[in-house]
């Protein structure tokens, strides 16, 4: 049956350029952080095995590959996502205000079968900067927005220190798993053109 499909969970990370999407992924998957910002090059998606109730799943975390910069992500990127992570920089108000646009863009493009209950997770990143003194988006404000959108789970993170990153992705994996798979598209199985590569591939930073 669709076992292969269910073992693989697609997670996409959205948010304005520079909020730390790639850093969060790298911190979670490779436990690495680089202070050098470069608009994402070379990362396609990262994969990580996660265990949940005695079962192993592959979390496939997709990066925007810089296509978010001019809101130019294609519909193929959004489709088939099991969980959508919305990231803002707590030090940049605009990045928080844009969460609403990213959420709506996702719902239009991915058109999930049950948009009301589609799992989102919101991350307020870069809480480490300037000891929190340059912060402009309060936890209260972020939580209020999350509550208004159907109680989206909210985490404050620092990709740099690794603070709360593991916990956030645990929640992401759990919610991705709860998401009902999209109908019968994957039945019967699709043709494995890449010779199994789709599951195993873990590209990106080798540095």
């Amino acid at each position, binding site marked *: 049956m669709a076992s292969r499909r269910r073992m693989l969970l697609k997670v996409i990370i959205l948010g304005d350029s520079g909020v730390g999407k790639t850093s969060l992924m790298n911190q979670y998957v490779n436990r690495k952080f680089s202070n050098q910002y470069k608009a994402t090059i070379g990362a396609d998606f990262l994969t990580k095995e996660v265990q949940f109730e005695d079962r192993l799943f592959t979390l496939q975390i997709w990066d925007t590959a*810089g296509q978010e910069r*001019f809101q130019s992500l294609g519909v193929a990127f959004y489709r088939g996502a099991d969980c959508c992570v919305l990231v803002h920089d707590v030090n940049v108000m605009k990045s928080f205000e844009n969460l609403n646009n990213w959420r709506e863009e996702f719902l239009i493009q991915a058109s999930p079968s049950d948009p009301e209950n589609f799992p989102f997770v919101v991350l307020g990143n870069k809480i480490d900067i300037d000891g929190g003194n340059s912060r402009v988006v309060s936890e209260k404000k972020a939580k209020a927005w999350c509550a208004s959108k159907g109680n989206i789970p909210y985490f404050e993170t620092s990709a740099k220190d690794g603070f709360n990153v593991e916990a956030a992705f645990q929640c992401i994996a759990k919610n991705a798993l709860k998401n009902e798979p999209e*109908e019968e*598209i994957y039945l019967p199985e699709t*043709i494995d053109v890449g010779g199994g*590569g789709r599951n195993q*591939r873990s590209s990106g930073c080798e540095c």
Partner: protein
Amino acid sequence: MADYPSIDPSSFDLIVIGTGLPESILASASATAGKTVLHLDPNSFYGNHFSSLPLDHFSSFLQSHSHCHSQQPNISPPTSSSNCLHLKHNNLFSHVHISNPHSEYLGPSNKFSLDLSGPKLLFCADPMVNIMLKSGATYHIEFKGVDATYVYRGDGDDKLMTVPDSRSAIFKSSVLTLKEKRQLMSFFKTVQEHILELEAALTSNEEMRRARTISDEELECPFIDFLTTKGLPSNIKSIILYAIAMADYDQETPLLRKDFVIKTKDGIKSLALHNMSLGRFVNASGALIYPIYGQGELSQAFCRCAAVKGALYVLRMPVTALLIDKESNCYKGVRLASGQELFSHHLVMSPSFTVPLSSTISSIRDVQGDSSESSSRSDVEGLVARAVCITRVSIKPDLSNLLIIFPPRSLYPEQMTSVRALQLGSGLAVCPPGLFVLYISTMCDAVAQGKELLHAAMNALAHLLSRKHESSTTMESDCVEEDGPNFLWSAIYVQELRKGSSEIIVSCPTPDGRLDYRDMLDSTIKLFHEMYAEVEFFPETEDAENAENDE
């Protein structure tokens, strides 16, 4: 007026306008080769004429890109150091006719993903599949197989004949006589031997050349003559020519244009491709596959690969003019709708745009050397007529994805071209459950001829569908109207064909009338090498080798 963002940096190795498949492959190959690439599209979606769209967008795209609709270019003043050439919108479609008799059964528009240039399929062993493996594009696309291929026979009782395209299919075929089975088996064996010889050709010498199963002379002869010398009866010749080698034009008429004649070597190449495609991938039962969500996935996958390699993507960004250096008369850059000017060494442009040629730019001329007039009509090299129909019944009750070939003369005696119809079901995520999408296309010389062929094929399909209908719902006679419930929705249109060309700017080819992407890929690779003569097109990487080894 839209609020356009400003783009930085302002200088690139390559600027690509339009995200059609050839443009996207070029962007991806160039970014992979380490070039800095800016990829722009005035649309809010990827793929241009190669995209797959929701039902309502599909209709509006057809209408807004057809001849009757003209777009006024924005006039912007020339700057001091450069001359401006305003880009003209080039509408590839004409004679669009959309009929919507039973829209109540269709459901939401966004449950459809309709190809603008269908029907198109990939052979499993296609060079296109190999390029997708090399580039990593296959990580973004999933495929399913086409369940069966049929040849339409106007006269027979059972109008659809399964194509006996493999050893086991020949063996199981109920329509072939024992003698025909033997002939076909022995023909496939000859071809197989020839292919093996080609593979061993590296070690060949003059003696071996002469001992070949198929001589060099034979290879240069028309494929039809070769089939005749092998003693194949006409029904089998027809299957090989039109349903396996996928010939577009009647090979049996003496009036055939010389460049449409399939030579034996090319015919055998197609048979070899077909043969290699069978069984290449586990659970692809036949030779042909189709991407889930439609062929628009292909350009998106290549764009994504380009982005991963650093290409910058900006949708919803029209380009209004090309900047031409006043002194050298060379291409220098582009001006965006925002007024911003960006510069690059090379420019790749989708066939939706043409540059009005003027004497200001000496280096850009069309083939005829006509430098004073716009290039708009002169380089149109043919027409393809296309139709998309939505039905509630499958042509074959147990199958949903199938290809039907109407060989020349099968619909009516004057039919000079093959008509191909591809039915796809909801398993490919191109329509809601319970519905089917039919893509039909044929080459043609004139609009009337193309439309006549489409209508004849649609009538034949409607007849097949209504027979299915009658047999399954004999009780409810009200279900069978004149040509009523057969097509819930249909669109018929004619598309211009243009080849790619490269002078100072590279102009990409339009979608072609072939079933597969081989010709398109060939011309795209050629355009790439015209830009970057010394650079390898998607060099072999470790990743790709691993994937190959896994097979």
